[in-house]
């Protein structure tokens, strides 16, 4: 595909906290639907986004059980994005900063996430058509 692009996104925010996460995943979704090759380098709190032990919960205040609450989990969104990219002929390579993972004890990640270093961020950017860094303020 002549116009198949490679983009890198660097994410820093933890899940469940910032609209930046929503926007970042929207951007990745657009790229995945286009069949682009996508690199994500997650560092600091963003390494918790694909943490496999995220779990839905009921909401006693609203009287909702787990199914009614239907709590969204970022790890499921990221798995869906990986599938979407693959379905369209692209890929989503997600690298979690290993030091940031160890600090937070979130080594258990969904399938498709690999452990890396800031050096991977440099390599990813070097082989990409462009890179967007979405840092925490």
């Amino acid at each position, binding site marked *: 595909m002549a*116009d198949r*692009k490679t*983009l890198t996104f660097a994410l820093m925010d933890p899940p469940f906290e910032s*609209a*930046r996460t929503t*926007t970042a995943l*929207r*951007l990745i979704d*657009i*790229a995945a639907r*286009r069949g*682009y090759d996508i690199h994500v380098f997650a560092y600091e709190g963003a390494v918790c986004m694909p943490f496999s032990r995220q779990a839905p919960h009921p909401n006693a205040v609203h009287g909702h059980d787990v199914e009614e609450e239907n709590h969204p989990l970022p790890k499921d969104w990221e798995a869906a994005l990986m599938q979407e990219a693959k379905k369209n002929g692209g890929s989503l390579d997600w690298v979690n900063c290993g030091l940031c993972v160890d600090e937070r004890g979130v080594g258990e990640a969904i399938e498709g996430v690999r452990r890396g270093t800031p050096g991977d961020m440099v390599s990813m950017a070097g082989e990409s*058509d*462009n890179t*967007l*860094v*979405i*840092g925490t*303020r």
Partner: protein
Amino acid sequence: MSKYLLIESRDPYESGDVGNYFELAQGLAREGNDVTLFLVQNGVLSARSGASSAALDDAIKAGIEILADDFSLRERAIDASALKAGVKSSPLDVVVDGLADGCKTIWH
């Protein structure tokens, strides 16, 4: 000449440096660069027709292309018809277009 895509996500009434970012856009444009300012999240608040934002008004007068994320507008119940003249509602796809085209893209 370079192409710049400047993304503003912050509420101008919460972060004083939003004005500086709009001034950066103007400076880049003055030096002959092709500059697009994309407002997203709370960054769209300054795009309302009644909103007071001298720096954004100056950027509009400078002829900079200013786009506001349609999803962020809908989340905040801001209709496209309520935007300042010079600001257009736009899908987020524009940012991926810019990245794919090699625009120098900066998030703020």
